[in-house]
């Protein structure tokens, strides 16, 4: 079962990916993102609009402007589940390493 959608290209644009990565690093305003890149504020706003529509980022109003965050329903959930997965794996790994007979004397 596979799906193909035009949205797949959302992160193909290098500038849009850069915008997304800045937001992924920490929540930022449009002005902060613009300062970090060599594009205009209106271009950044356009990219944020696309990322918002793709539900990759979310805008949270703060004062007169918006602060952009990673959409918690997307990446954050995947992260949380993988974090649990690796936690469980490492715990079981530690038991496997330490419970197998060792050759060296204690």
């Amino acid at each position, binding site marked *: *079962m596979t*799906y*193909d*959608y035009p*949205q*797949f290209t*959302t*992160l193909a644009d290098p500038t849009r990916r850069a915008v*997304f*990565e800045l937001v*992924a*690093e*920490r929540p930022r305003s449009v002005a902060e993102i613009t300062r970090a890149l060599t594009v205009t504020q209106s271009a950044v706003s356009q990219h944020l609009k696309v990322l918002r529509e*793709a*539900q*990759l980022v979310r805008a949270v109003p703060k004062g007169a402007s918006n602060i952009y965050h*990673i959409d918690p329903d*997307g*990446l*954050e*959930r*995947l*992260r*949380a*589940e*993988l*974090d*649990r*997965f*690796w*936690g*469980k*794996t*490492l*715990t*079981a*790994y*530690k*038991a*496997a*390493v*330490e419970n*197998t007979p*060792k050759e*060296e004397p204690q």
Partner: protein
Amino acid sequence: MNTHAAATSVKQSIVVEAPIARAFEVFVKDFGRFKPAEHNLLGVAIAETVFEPQVGGHIYDRGIDGSLCRWARVLAYEPPNRLLMSWDISPRWQIETNLGRTSEWEVRFTAETASRTRVEIEHRHLERHGQGWEGVRDGVGGEEGWPLYLQRFADLFARPTGR
């Protein structure tokens, strides 16, 4: 155990009471023994999980009916210090065949003493899977898309792990 990470990666570490060479060896040879058993993309129970110890190899699950699921490619194999693998599993909990949409996980082994080793795992570039959830959310959505798979994933690992 520590947990700290950027928003697009997961990073964990653990200290084991074993020399570095042994810590590395157990990780590779016994991977199928400690990998959470519920982590299964096959339609049947897993008979064994094989970690092919070389660059270009795979980690694969073999089902009791003989079916194979190769879900990771070995990108770096540097005993006893480092492993780098791909994660060819989409957020929909299916094998991802588009390599541009796969993430990677690195395992680093550091000797703290002659008989104690720190093992760190960093699973990074999770944003590369993003296209998957966009597609499902926008095109399939609802109960049948990736939320279903993630919920299944979440249910599997929701039990306390003794951390």
